[in-house]
């Protein structure tokens, strides 16, 4: 089991859900309105006067065998619309109840 944290422009939300749906990934937590800035390039999503766009973030726990496929799809999504911004981070899940 891996925890996958995806931070992305709000506008990507439906696309991300579609990817998860296609891979049969269920269960997630979604934060709708977040502020954030990419570490390399791309516009910040701060919801301010200067940077009015907003980020959303999604945390989902995925079976190990699905992670690689999931990451690949998300990368494709990022490549397709580079201006929107999407970052994914994966780490191990120690325990669940």
């Amino acid at each position, binding site marked *: 089991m891996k925890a996958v944290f995806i931070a992305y422009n709000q*506008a990507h939300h439906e696309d991300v859900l579609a990817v998860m749906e296609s891979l049969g990934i269920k269960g997630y937590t979604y934060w709708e309105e977040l502020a954030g800035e990419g570490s390399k390039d791309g516009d910040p999503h701060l919801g301010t006067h*200067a940077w009015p766009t907003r980020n959303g973030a999604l945390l989902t726990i995925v079976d190990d065998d699905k992670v690689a496929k999931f990451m690949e799809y998300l990368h494709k999504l990022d490549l397709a619309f580079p201006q*929107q911004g999407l970052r994914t981070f994966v780490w191990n899940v120690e325990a669940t109840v």
Partner: protein
Amino acid sequence: MSIYKTAVNRPVFTALLYVAIAVFGIFSLSKLSISNFPDVDSSSVMVMTTYSGASAEDIEANISKVLENSLNSVPNLKHITSRSSENTSLITMEFVQGINMDEAMNNIRDKLDMVADYLPDGASTPMLFKFGSEEMPILILSVTAKESMNGLYKILDDRVVTELERIDGVGTVGISGIPEREVHVNCDPYKLEAYGLTIEGISKVIAAENQNTPAGSIDIGSDTYSLRVQKEFTDASQLRDLVVGTSNGAAVYLKDIAVVKDTVEERSQESYTNNLKGGQIVIQKQAGANSVNIAKAVKAKLPEIIKTLPSDVKIGVIVDSSDSIINTIGSLGNTIIIILLIVMLVVYLFLGRWRATFVIVLTIPISLLAALIYLFATKNTLNIISMSALSIAIGMVVDNAIVVLENITTHIERGSKPKQAAIYATNEVGIAVMASTLTTIAVFLPLTMIKGMTGVLFKQLGWMVTIILSVSTLAAMTLTPMLCSKLLVANPKSSRFHDIVFKPITTFLQWLGDAYAKLLAWALHHKALVLCCAAAIFLVVIIPWARNMKTEFFPTEDNGRISATVELPMGTRQEITRNVAMRITDEWLSKYPEVERCNFTEGVSEKSTVFAAMSTRGTNIISFNVRLCSASKRKRTLGEICDCMRNDLKQYPEIRIAQVTEGGFMGGMGGQSSVDVEIYGYDFAATDKIAAELMEKMKKEPSVSQVTVSRDQYTPEYRVDFDREKLALHGLNSATAASYLRNRINGSVDSYYREDGDEYDIRVRSAREFRTSLEDIENIMLYNSAGQGVRIGDVARIRESYSPPTIERKDRQRVITVYCVVAHGAATSDVIKTATKHMGEIEMPIGITYKFGGSYEDQKEMFSDIITLMMLIIILVYIIMAAQFESLKYPFAIMFSIPFALVGVVIGLWLNGQAMGVMTLLGVLMLVGIVVNNGIVLIDYTRLCRERGDSIFDAVVKAGRSRLRPILMTTLTTVFGMIPMAVGHGEGSEMWRPLGVSVAWGLSFSTVVTLVLIPVIYSLFAKSDKNTKMIAAEEVKRIEEKAAETEETIKQ
């Protein structure tokens, strides 16, 4: 959940909501009535008091003055004027517009009750009535007839008047110019003398013989019958065999001493249309009714009525006040459609995508229809003001939708799905869109709060634009994102045609952006030069204009109607007057092919009405009503033709006073502009002299086309001066003697001839041939109670005399007014200037003062109202911008676009040769709210760039390049929207042309200047501001310093 999210997620709901608005709007449109201006309640009240036998001066001293002093303290009174003439006093009280007139009427009644005891015993109770423009005739029909002429009055009265009066909203219907039937008994005074009879006696005998008397009931057997003496005449010829006396034992029949004629009244008003004799039917509406609806209903009913009339009776229309209203509103409607098309074209050219254009343009009909719902709900009408509001708003309503759509497009191009883009992009610009709408609403909402005449006019405009803008903003935040989410696609395919058309436009816009960026860069390096240039432009235009400012109230509306009053010397006979009138008509008909119908009336009707009390009438006065063909069909304007007619009338030596009125009415909105010089002073001779002197001087001025004086001349008359002593010796008194005289000349009416339920006067008097000279009057025999006769010549002297004119007072002082009509092409302010100059030259005795009244007074009042309002609006706009920017200095920088809007307006006025009027000022007022929007867009984006870390220079240039397109787009939609108004030639276009000119010129000029000047001023103000990098560096430095301090403390 935000409204845009709901809107996008529930497209059916959203769409149907706006469909509902549209349906209600269309329903309202079909039900709305039209009129020229918003309903203005009459604000004048008249008080009429009669006191028989009193001269004008007595009336003034005993009635008018007493009433004025008491009525003067009624609240909200603007002016009190009075006309004191023989026997009557007529006081007119003018109130501030927009107050509750019922309350005012009650106040007046209270005051009248208080003062009642102080009036002379013989005076009647003062009569009170409201009178306003709505009581003016709205429709005048002409009637011509051949065979039926003698019975025409009855035919019209029975079949036309009663039918028309039944129509809802029609007030009174009057017939004029057609003599009424009368039975005349024309006696031979010498035969009367021979038989020892008098006119009074004959009149009494006729009355006594012409009666039906019920005589009670009688029981016969088991029945009860009523008894009746039925002796009323059933035919006028029965009068002839009436026994009026006996002579030597034989009966004297009426036919022996008099001629009995069943005919029409001797003196009457006559009416001619294009020199054909006929009558007039004058239709007035009820207060508050809609002229156009009534005129329509009357015209719909006419064909039905005409069918019932004899075939020789023809009915036509002389004056139809609804005509020009329908045409005016129609041409405004066309203007609105043109504006809509132009705005659509501009949007399409800029966006290059028909779907986007559709989304944006759709907000126009929806917001306009919403405003129509408001009009319908508040029982208002489609009029010049509300229609102008619609046309003004078209260019502005698309602005918000454009901003929203642009941002959605950006998001889609960045890769968002249309639905997501629609929600988030709208969210981003929502606040900015609302703020920019607020600055515009800040201008229009205060318009709804002002009082007086200005308030009445602009209230509707204020509400309409406020509603239109609010609905358009709502649509921009709901309907636009919803439609975008459905209609917009990421990368639209473009056809070859599209490429051919739009490639050059895109290239041009690109080039324009680059050029503008270069210009900005240059300007930022030459700030002082730019500021000096701007100041120079402002001063060079404004100073000469302010020194030489031409002002007017409202432009004269070309409604194709002219009325003229021509006065021949006092006492001219009706036949001669008629002859002059016919000559004038012939000349006008041949000289001006534009004249469709020329109607005149002359003579005095024997009936007296309120109209008669207000206007001077006489056998020497002709009043013309001329109708021209519609404005678009002729080359000469109304003003030009009127000026020519005035010159024509100067060629007639027999004319004493000629007055030609453009538009058919004086003053007010759209009427002829005039300057009234009111000269106050008690002494008739002194004020007369000053008025005459001023009149002579003003007549020579080219800026004045007509000068008249309000005070009449002394009227020549014969006075029969009875010697009381001689009368007494013969057992007579003045009253009896005077009644004898009256009965012989004017006739005695003691009885009526009844036929078919109508009553006709039976008038007994001397036959016409016995009352044509002064000798005839001297020969009139007076009888005392003993039956002894004496001739008037023996007890009285007849001498020629003059009766004093009506005494006019205003605000409790005697006044004489010199009316100066502003010539075609001149402005009211020119006339004021020359009149002031001339009045300065005239020597004024102590106690005589003057001031300017008429439309100039209203103009002054309205100008000061609007200027106060403008100050308030400027402050309000500043407050809204300051709140939006959270800064005091940037809004100040943006405010610099306002003076340049004024410069643009001045240039526009100068190029069009127009004077500054109320409509222009309204344009300036609107500009305050519109021109700042460009500055807001520009400064907002510049600040955004600064926040993103750009230097001042980079931020200004970048913002300029990026915002040029939206600024041009919103400006062009508004400016092009105004152009059809500014160049319109339809009927009534004079009214709104100044508005179109001022907004189009003001906005274009200010935009051009704003685009360079505002960034420069911004850069000066922003110098002290720091960008994010500087703030970060300072923050780090502060932390380091603080840390160093703490470390040092720890060390110690």
